[in-house]
């Protein structure tokens, strides 16, 4: 079975500073990787995903994540955060032919002015 570990439960960061959210996964088979964002009192929204091909994937709002197979990681980064990026971020993994998403414990990003 696959598992996901998000190493930081909370990351405080100042506005316009960079942020990195760490995600490591464990699986014996090929996986797909996802980052979801949950704004306060809302459902989860897909931020970006890695299926295959280029190991660097980007979202439309400036986030990027890099798949590193040797380190079994899929860290999320943004070079300059905004107040509006304050949210809970979830890393998730699915086996390539499966239908179940397994989530990490989440990382709360608090952007301070």
């Amino acid at each position, binding site marked *: 079975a696959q598992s996901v570990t998000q190493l930081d439960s909370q990351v405080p960061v100042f506005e316009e500073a960079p942020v990195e959210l760490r995600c490591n996964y464990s699986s014996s088979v090929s996986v*797909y990787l*996802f980052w979801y964002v949950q704004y306060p009192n809302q459902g*989860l929204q897909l931020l970006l*995903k890695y*299926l295959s091909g280029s190991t660097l994937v980007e979202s439309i709002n400036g986030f990027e994540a890099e798949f590193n197979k040797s380190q079994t990681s899929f860290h999320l980064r943004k070079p300059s955060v905004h107040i509006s990026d304050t949210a809970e971020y979830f890393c998730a993994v*699915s086996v390539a032919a*499966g*239908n179940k*998403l397994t989530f990490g414990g989440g990382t709360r990003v608090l952007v301070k002015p």
Partner: protein
Amino acid sequence: DTAVSQTPKYLVTQMGNDKSIKCEQNLGHDTMYWYKQDSKKFLKIMFSYNNKELIINETVPNRFSPKSPDKAHLNLHINSLELGDSAVYFCASSQEVAAGSYGYTFGSGTRLTVV
């Protein structure tokens, strides 16, 4: 609007009661899910249905019973509610069984509080 919609958004009830949460998606997806998010934000899958057929049933008390009248609906019925059932319940759907390639579309959640 195309979406996954859940009702009610908030549900406060007493221990021992029976309650239902409804979920509908108009995305044409074949697979629907129920996830439970606890107070620490941890998300755990409960059930998954594909075209009205149960395909995932995680270790969930049998007080929880999902029902899928058609592929656009997946309801969750909970009997004999307990304090530990308090959580946010999310419905989600995906385009096909191999949801790994597409990810999920989530509803906005139902916050259940058992008192």
